[in-house]
């Protein structure tokens, strides 16, 4: 039963990611990107999707920083790295490893 739930979460997550990417490709506004309904639904899925978000981040599929911050209530990115997407990504992936997430 647990495996089925995990599978359903992943399936829903994947569908939402695909929709979000398709509908925000050309947008520069991170406010607009993050307010997109699919992105908000991902945030609403809560902590179970953190490892999935970290995987997406590692795969460079999009900016998942807002979602990770919203769900975890943490932000491991130093101020001096704001906007430096490569450094931001490294900081979040290291954060995930330190907390024992696997993705």
């Amino acid at each position, binding site marked *: 039963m647990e495996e089925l739930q995990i599978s359903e979460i992943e399936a829903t997550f994947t569908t939402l990611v695909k929709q979000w*990417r398709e509908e*925000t*490709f*050309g*947008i*520069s*506004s*991170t*406010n607009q990107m*993050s307010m997109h309904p699919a992105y908000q639904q991902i945030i609403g899925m809560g902590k179970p999707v953190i490892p999935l978000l970290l995987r997406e981040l590692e795969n*460079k599929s*999009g*900016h998942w*920083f*807002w979602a990770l*911050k919203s769900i975890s209530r943490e*932000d491991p*990115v130093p101020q001096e790295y*704001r*906007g*430096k*997407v*490569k450094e*931001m990504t490294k900081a979040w992936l290291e954060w995930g490893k330190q907390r024992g997430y696997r993705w």
Partner: protein
Amino acid sequence: MVGNNAWVKFVREKIERDYPNLIVYGYKLTSPDTIDYNCVAWAAEDDETWWWPDIQHQFYWPLSVPREETIEAFQQAFETLGYEVCQGDVLEEGFQRIAIYANSNKVPTHIARQLPTGKWTSKLGSLEDIEHNNLQGLTGNPGYGEIACIMKKSISV
């Protein structure tokens, strides 16, 4: 090289879906897609940073400039780089121009930078960089709305 033929076809279809005026006025892909920088950064000649005044303060925005999605704030951001508001988009020797686009709510949506040839270069959000023949190619809805402001700065010749 900007991807293989199949990928280029896929990307062009996506771009032309969202920016149909490019079909009319012309464009070409010039760089691979990346989420490392956006149109504002590219216009500022920065290909390592995502510039936006986001409300969570996760992305870069000049410290001295109000962190708000207004035409005025975007003007101020480029004033920090030596740009001044001007009229017209005609190529002018000794100057480089940028153009700020905004939607019908006067919210900035995009910035393009003029090339020495008189054409324009843009980073389309998370997509590729393109070179487009004029500013009209990215206007409209779908598109980035209308041109809200043009700025220029002196450059060495």
